[in-house]
Structure formats: C-alpha cells, structure tokens
C-alpha cells in the first residue's frame, strides 16, 4: 500500500496520522512549521474550555502517538508543491528547504486548519498600536506563563475587558460566520484571571453568548462562582484615557440603550477564525471548490463531514470551518478510517 498523506500537524492531522498508524497504514505527516501541534502549540494555549484542562493533557497524548512511530514519516518544515491524480491516489511533490521530492500516495487527508483573524484589520480597536490591547494569541501565552501584566508598563491590571466577535459575524471585514470558540474561550480566560487574581475586575462585552450545549455551564459558573460581569453591547472604539495610561472603551449598552465609556487597563479581543493560508493553497492545488467563507466544503457535510467528494481526498478539522479541538480530533479519526478504506480497496 502506498502511504497516506496527511497535510497539517494540528489536532486533526495528529489524530488522523496516529489512527492511520494504528491501523497499520504507512503515513506521511507533512507540517509547514518546524514543530507539531498546530495553533494550540504555536500560541501556547493555556487551559482548554470548558473543563479547564491544561492543553498539554490533550496535545501530549496525540503527539506521543506520532513521535518515534516507525509507520509515520514525519516531514516538518515541508509544504505541498504539486498534486496530480493518478489511477489510484495522487502523485504529489513535496517542497522542503527548496528541495522538491515526488511521491506516490494512496490518499490524502487535508487537515490544514485555521489562522486567527488579524485583529489589526479592526483598526478602531487599536490592536498593534496600543500595547495593552491584546488578542487571544497574547493572552493565552500570558495565562500559560501565569504572568498577567500590562505590556505597556509591566504592572498588574485592575480592570480587564473582553470584546467578543472580533473578525467574526462581521461583513465589514468579510467574515460573516461565527467562530464558535470566542465566547467560551473568552469566558474561560476571564475565569482563569479571576481564579488566580480575584482583585482584577473582568467584563465581557457581547452580542450573543454562544456557549452551546454543555459549555453553558462555564458561562453560568463564570458569573456565579467567579464574578465575571457581562455587558450586552459592543465596544465600537478604543482610545487612550488618563494621560495615555489607560484604555477608554466606548460602546453602547444595548440593554440600557445608553452609550457607555469605561476605562480599562487591558482589553482582550476575541480574534475569530479564518481559513489558514495552507487551506487556501490546498484548495488551489487540488482545484477544490470553497464556500463563500473560503473554507473547504465537504460534499454532503451532514452525511459525512470528512468526504471531499473527490476520490482519495478527505478533510479533517478546521479546514472545513471553525471547530473545537475535540471535534477536530474526531474528524481526524473519521478521515483516517475513510482514507484507509480507500487505500485498501
């Protein structure tokens, strides 16, 4: 059997490669970066919502299945340069440090994931200009290292705000979809802050809270047990206040129907999810149709979310839309099974 090619070393790709290996299929795992683990590793995610479990407890077992596995050929710092369909599977060209290598593979799993929205594009929030306006990437590292301090002066904040839906549900930036994670991750971050630093006030500004299913529990607990405050309405702009030492958040409290202006020491933007650069490249290389959002579209997403509709090509994880880590892992397993069946038959 020719090997199965897995594109992407995040939760979905790791899950797929690990399952393929345990099914006995030779596997090539290609990762653009020089390390495995995808966005959770890249941005040092701290605890995972909703159970507040350290990210390592989820990622380490996935990584453990890959490292040193003789059935998995690990190709870091490598990208896909070309892919042609052959009678069964694909002839692919891998690019690594400028060198090209041609390989025959029996099937391909696309697990190229998402990128965080570049918060600079919502320019009214001053991200990238005001050091104390952070987004998910920076705050997760801070929480991971237990060092919640204002980047501007290194002092602990007294009052923090989270702004949901930055780069999500917004046609002004061309992203009308919901990222699904922003609510629960922001609430989780606020809880993490309040748990360790009860002296810091935490406010969440929201349009809707979408802690769907059992995640609702964390939303309730965040108020009941951790005293996180919720304001319905969006912050429309952030300016400097108090001689430039604090941030002034201006918005509308849409329940009271009044404009609001509140000074904060740190403001966190819940940066949304977009199809990653790799996802877009793969769509072009395989000539795949993408939805209006730019994510890959399974043939019948209700019936089988991992089937691309193209023989020998399967999807897993956030390449097909915003997804939580457990869902990405599940899809990795599903895609591994389908790719194995295709390669074997």
């Amino acid at each position, binding site marked *: 059997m020719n090997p199965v090619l897995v594109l992407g070393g995040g939760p979905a790709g790791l899950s797929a490669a690990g399952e393929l290996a345990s099914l006995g299929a030779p596997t090539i795992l290609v990762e653009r970066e020089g390390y495995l683990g995808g966005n959770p590793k890249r941005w040092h995610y701290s605890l995972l919502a909703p159970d507040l479990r350290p990210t390592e407890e989820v990622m380490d077992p996935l990584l453990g299945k890959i490292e040193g596995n003789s059935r998995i050929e690990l190709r870091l710092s490598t990208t896909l340069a070309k892919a042609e369909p052959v009678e069964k599977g694909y002839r692919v060209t891998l690019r690594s440090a400028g060198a090209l290598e041609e390989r025959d593979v029996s099937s391909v799993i696309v697990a190229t994931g998402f990128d965080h929205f570049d918060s600079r594009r919502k*320019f*009214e*929030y*001053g991200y990238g*200009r*005001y050091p104390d306006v952070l987004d998910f990437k920076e705050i997760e590292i801070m929480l991971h290292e237990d060092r919640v301090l204002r980047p501007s002066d290194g002092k602990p904040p007294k009052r923090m705000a989270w702004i949901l*839906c930055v780069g999500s*549900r*917004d*046609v*002004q930036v061309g992203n009308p979809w919901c990222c699904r994670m922003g609510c629960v991750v922001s609430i989780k971050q606020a809880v993490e802050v309040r748990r360790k630093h009860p002296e810091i006030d935490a406010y969440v500004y929201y*349009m*809707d809270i979408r802690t769907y299913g059992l995640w609702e529990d964390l939303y309730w607990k965040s108020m009941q047990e951790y005293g996180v405050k919720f304001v*319905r*309405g*969006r*912050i*429309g*702009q*952030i*300016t*400097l206040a108090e001689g*430039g030492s604090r941030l002034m958040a*201006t*918005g*509308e*409290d*849409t329940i009271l*129907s009044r*404009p609001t202006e509140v000074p904060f020491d740190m403001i966190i933007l819940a940066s949304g999810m977009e199809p990653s650069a790799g996802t877009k490249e793969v769509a072009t290389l395989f000539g795949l149709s993408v939805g209006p959002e730019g994510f890959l579209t399974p043939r019948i997403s209700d019936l089988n979310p991992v089937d691309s509709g193209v023989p020998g090509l399967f999807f897993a994880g956030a390449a097909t839309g915003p997804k939580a880590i457990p869902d990405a892992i599940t899809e990795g397993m599903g895609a591994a099974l389908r790719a194995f069946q295709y390669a074997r038959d």
Partner: protein
Amino acid sequence: MSVVAHLPRRAQSLTEEEAESPPAMELTGRHRMSEDERTVAATIFDEFHADPRYREFVLGCLNCGECTTGCPAARFYDFSPREMLQIAATGDATTLWDALQEKIWACCQCYTCNMRCRFGNDIAGIISVMRELSVIHGLESTRRTLAPFGRSLTLLMTVGTQVSSDMIQPDFFRDWGPFATGSDQVWQVTPEVMRKAIPLDVLQTTRSSWEVSVQTSLELFRIYEETGVLDMLRGLDPDLTEMLVDIVEERREEFAEARERFSSELAGQRGPVATFTG
C-alpha cells in the same frame, strides 16, 4: 368573584373608544392619536415598506450597538441608530409614526453607523427615507422641527454645499479611531483612510471647493424640480418654496443674460477670424 373584579381599576372605567386603542399608548404615555393621524400613520407605514429602498437598506440586526457607539447625535440626544433600525423593522405603524415626530431629525447623516454596521445595513439611508415620508406627508411636527432651518435650506437648495478638505481635522473625526487621531494627537490619517472618507476630487479642489458656479447651482435646482423634491417641500412650506423659486428665477435670468453677452462677445471676436479664414 367576577372576572372583571380581577382587572385593574383603570380597565373597568375605559370608554368603548378608549378600549379599542392599543394599551401600549396608555403605558408609554404617548399622546392619543386622532383618527386622521392614525390614517396617515397607516399610509406612511405602507409606503415605507413598499419603498424599493426598504429591502435594500434594512437587512437585519444583531443589536450589537456599534452604530450607536460612533453616532455623534447619540451623545447629545435621546437618539440611537440601533433604535432607528429597530423602528424601521417594526411591524407597528404607531411606533414608526412616533419616530417620525422628532427623532429622525436628530441624525446628522454622517453615515458613520453604516461604516460601523457589521450586518451591512444602510441605517442613515433608511432614516432619510423616513424623513422623505414625513416631508411628503407634510407632518405638522416636521414643519415645526424644520422651521428654524429655513436659512440653511435656502442656501442648500439655491447654492448647494460642499466640504473643503481643510475642514477635515482629526479632532472632528474621532470616530475614525486611534489610527486616525493617534495617541499623540498628531494628524495620522493615511491617504487610504482619507480617500475612504472624502471623495478624491474634493481633496484636489481645496481652494475652489467653496466657489459654486452659477450654472452648477442652477442645474442642481433643476434636479430638485425634475425629481419632485421641490414639490415635496411645497407641501411642507409653500412660502419658503416660493421664495426659493423667486431666487432661482432671478439667477436664471442673470445667467441667461450673461450667456447672451458672453456669446455675442465671443461672436465679435470670432467675426474677423471667420472673415479671414473664409
């Protein structure tokens, strides 16, 4: 005990006519509408929803309030673009009617709400549709609200107004956000941002932008005549409209004379040339 006894005392004492009117009016303390007003309100409501712009401008609303955040009027009046959009979407003719009485005139038509709206609604646009309707139907409240603006209106309709680019100071445009105004209050609008806000041809005519050619202002007035704007205004304020017509008629005559003079001067110059070449 009878059912009636459970009702609030007020309900028992309602007359038949009072009982027919919606209770919301009692609760919110709105003034009781006359039969005529109710008819006009229903007509306006129907026309509003039949307007082809309605479906294009009113898409939906997440009630996020970002429109209100940037709204200059919301800072000073009991006004919010979010509320206006909700009113535009309401199925209740009386709610629309109430908004037409005064609120719609608080909007300064700066279109910041449109720029902010993540749903892509044209809020400032739908407000101007509401204004149109209140003018077309010559509402007494509209007449009262607009009375102090006769001078501005006269200037606007006989000359037209323009913005010159030296009026664009960052302090006036805080809604452009920190990248425009800057923490250090230094002018930091990039050409890209500026072009988004101000038409390029306006930027290029700093000096001449206050000079309006007579021909342009006459053409503008012609547009008001042809598109029915003048008729709208006539219904609301016939005296002002007649004054505007007088002013413009006088200008037209002056312009016609000037053109005559100019073309005969030109002909006088051309005369010998024509002879020479002929």
